[in-house]
């Protein structure tokens, strides 16, 4: 072969900055789109992406990856894995696809923002490939669930979720729109790729892939681990941008963006991924607890990445570490209790064996969350189903758009963190959510949470029925108990046993 090596010509392909003449530099790279850091083009030419790939390498490798993932799908199409899967596992897939597929597609445009507006030529080329990756992830994660759409109406939400005002989707959009759709190129590189993709997608995709393989869902396991191989490339776009910022005295601005994005990602994961891992995935297929996954993929990873970068741990690190054992249990109980408002069937996940597992992984679970579940269990066992469904809405946070919650039991600690800003009173679920708002209130102030909309009369009639109509979720789509309350039989039997004694 008489062809050049990649590095013979790679640098030329990223020597593409020029000094504009017919328009000003600030017109070609408007600060609000390119980043208001006051750094000139030359400063960004120092940007050096650690993961280098050329166009011909990209199309070749990606073609091969697609061939792999799509052939596994084709081979298993008639396998009835979906039909035979545990209902809890189906719920995992439904929640995942609905919250993720079109969000990934939207990320293509966040990558395109970096491509067009970054002053770093290396970033522009890497974001070109990143943009293509995100088209891939959007398209695959629509094509794969589409196979099941004729079997189960809730699968329609793999597409539909992003078009609705379903509460979890308001929260998902609020987060993704904040970190990736409405930021300048450099902030996107920090908030989306460094803060979100490095750790959190790793956890969602590799963690869930491990559970999927255990559950025998090889198509899904293959799909999401294939996606992660792309993420691990384009997630490295943000690191070198942080280096440039820090070298140019912008550490504080960089740190702020990391801290905002990390917190939002955590909150979203506490409602979507926590329940999936600790309650929906069948007990025998759980590789690790959500907290263990978080500690491995997020805590350890970030402590290392931030230190390597010369950044600090977020100021709220202690709060975050404490919440790892708590928040998602509340989110699970909330989404279970309000199950008609979600597009999947939550698995309660509280049989005696599962409770033992929860107690082992989260010492004290039975004395806290367990007490609340005892009430739900009693109502279901007694046939008091009216009491096992909600009538109103929970209060939600004006930042993460998720319920404001605390840990039940003796240490009951639920607390509102209010803030008055320009005559309006806002409510936050934590000190950190409030802090995020205070950093740039003009980004958030005019937004109405679903509860604000309810109180403003935008949701009619003002009851659960009106709320469901507003969320565009109807009978046939609304969630109910994944196992049709089969778990209650265990408790009925236990009661009968106790009576017999």
């Amino acid at each position, binding site marked *: *072969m*008489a*062809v*050049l090596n990649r590095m*013979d*010509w*790679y640098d*030329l392909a990223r*020597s*593409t900055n*020029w000094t504009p*003449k017919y328009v000003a530099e600030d017109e*070609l790279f408007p600060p609000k789109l390119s980043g208001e850091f006051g750094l000139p083009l030359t400063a960004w030419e120092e940007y050096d992406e650690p993961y280098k790939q*050329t*166009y*011909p390498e990209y*199309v*070749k490798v*990606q*073609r091969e990856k697609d061939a792999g993932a799509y052939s596994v799908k084709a081979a298993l199409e008639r396998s009835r894995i979906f039909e035979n899967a545990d209902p809890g596992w189906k719920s995992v897939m439904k929640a995942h696809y609905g919250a993720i597929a079109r969000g990934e*597609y*939207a990320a*293509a*445009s966040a990558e*395109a*923002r970096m*491509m*067009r507006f970054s002053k770093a*030529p290396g970033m522009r*080329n890497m974001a*070109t490939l990143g*943009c*293509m990756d995100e*088209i891939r992830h*959007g*398209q*695959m994660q*629509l*094509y794969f669930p*589409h196979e099941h759409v*004729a079997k189960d*109406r809730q*699968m*329609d939400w793999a*597409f*539909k979720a*992003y*078009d609705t005002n379903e509460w979890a989707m*308001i929260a998902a*959009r*609020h987060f993704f*729109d904040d970190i990736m*759709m*409405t930021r300048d190129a450099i902030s996107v590189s920090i908030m989306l790729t460094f803060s979100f993709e490095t750790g959190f997608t790793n956890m969602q995709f590799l963690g869930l892939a491990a559970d999927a393989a255990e559950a025998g869902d090889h198509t899904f396991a293959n799909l999401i681990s294939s996606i992660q191989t792309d993420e691990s490339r384009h997630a490295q776009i943000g690191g070198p941008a942080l280096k440039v910022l820090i070298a140019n005295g912008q550490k504080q601005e960089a740190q702020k963006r990391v801290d905002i994005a990390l917190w939002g990602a955590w909150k979203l994961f506490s409602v979507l991924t926590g329940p999936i891992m600790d309650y929906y995935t069948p007990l025998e297929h759980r590789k690790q607890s959500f907290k263990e996954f978080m500690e491995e993929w997020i805590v350890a990873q970030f402590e290392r990445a931030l230190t390597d970068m010369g950044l600090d741990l977020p100021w709220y690190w202690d709060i975050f570490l404490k919440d790892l054992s708590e928040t998602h249990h509340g989110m699970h109980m909330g989404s279970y209790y309000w199950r008609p408002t979600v597009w999947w069937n939550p698995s309660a996940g509280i049989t005696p064996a599962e409770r033992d597992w929860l107690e082992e992984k989260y010492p004290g679970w039975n004395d806290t969350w367990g007490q609340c579940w005892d009430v739900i269990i009693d109502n279901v066992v007694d046939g008091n189903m009216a009491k096992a469904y909600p009538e109103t809405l929970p209060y939600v946070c004006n930042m993460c758009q998720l319920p404001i919650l605390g840990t039940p039991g003796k240490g009951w600690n639920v607390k509102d963190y209010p803030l008055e800003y320009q005559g309006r009173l806002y409510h936050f679920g934590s000190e950190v959510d409030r802090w995020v708002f205070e950093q740039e209130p*003009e*980004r958030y102030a*005019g*937004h109405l949470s679903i509860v604000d909309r309810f109180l403003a009369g935008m949701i009619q009639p003002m009851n659960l029925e009106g709320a469901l109509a507003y969320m565009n979720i109807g*009978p046939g*789509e609304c969630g109910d108990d994944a196992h049709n309350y089969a778990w209650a039989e265990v408790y009925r039997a236990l009661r009968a046993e106790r009576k017999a004694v």
Partner: protein
Amino acid sequence: MSDIQILKPQKTWSHLAARRRKPSEYEIVSTNLHYNDRDAASPYELDPGMFMNEWYKKHTFDTALKHADWNAFRDPDEVVYRTYNLMQDGQETYVFGLFNQFNEREHDKALDPRWAGSLGRLYAPARFLFHALQMASAYVGQVSPASTLTNCNYFQMADSLRWLSHTAYRTRELALAFPDQGFGRDERRYWEQDPVWQGFRELVEKALTTWDWGEAIVALSLVVKPAVEEAVLRQLGASARHNGDTLLGLLTDAQLIDADRHRRWTAAFVAMALETTGNLELMMAWIACWAPLADRAIEAYCGALPDAPGAADAARAATRDIRRGLGL
């Protein structure tokens, strides 16, 4: 309670289910994917008045180029991600096969040094121009009102990176064959200072700062790209063939295959735009505004191509033919 209708599973996504036709893979994974058109007051789920919400309201949704349903747009080639890679991996195998073969035959050593000088001035600096197309396509894609349009622009962005990559690759090879001609060193100077490039530089700098989606897509797809492709691919390729540079002729032919695909979706886009009254006049007015810049760019560039008499006229005429063929 008896009249509550329970929603049943359908054969495809609910938004495609009303039609009787079985959707293609392309439609399943490409249509109606943007969610920023849910709420006219607030494209994104944040303060309606924040900067980026205002940006999309103004530049995407309030453009003068109107259509009742841009989401009805379909790429005539129905390109999806996986077919894009299948196609372009094949194309790259072909191009890198050419690079390999011509290198083995010591093609560059046989080139006339004067032609090598022309390549240094008229070919190698094109990487800046192709990169500008990459950036412009990325912008038009991110503000397009339909995902099917967005995708065409993103694939076009990737194709522009492809052209840029070929140029960088050849620049390095030429630097090895002609170490004293400034390959790999002088491109930026040519791009920023040589009069042959200033027309294109002005054209793309202005196109890159056109924020209104309607005007940006018209300027890029109907004026800028046709001018670049006819001058810097087709006429350069012809000039190359007259100067013993078979490789460059074959390379620009291969790149023009991408350009032809871009023109097919552009034709579908124009046909769709013309369904709405007023768009014809609007697009004609934009073109009238942009075409003189493109003509000057073609003039300056093609005038310098060796052994290419009439290149400027031919390129200019070709851009007219493209537009006329679309009713513009």
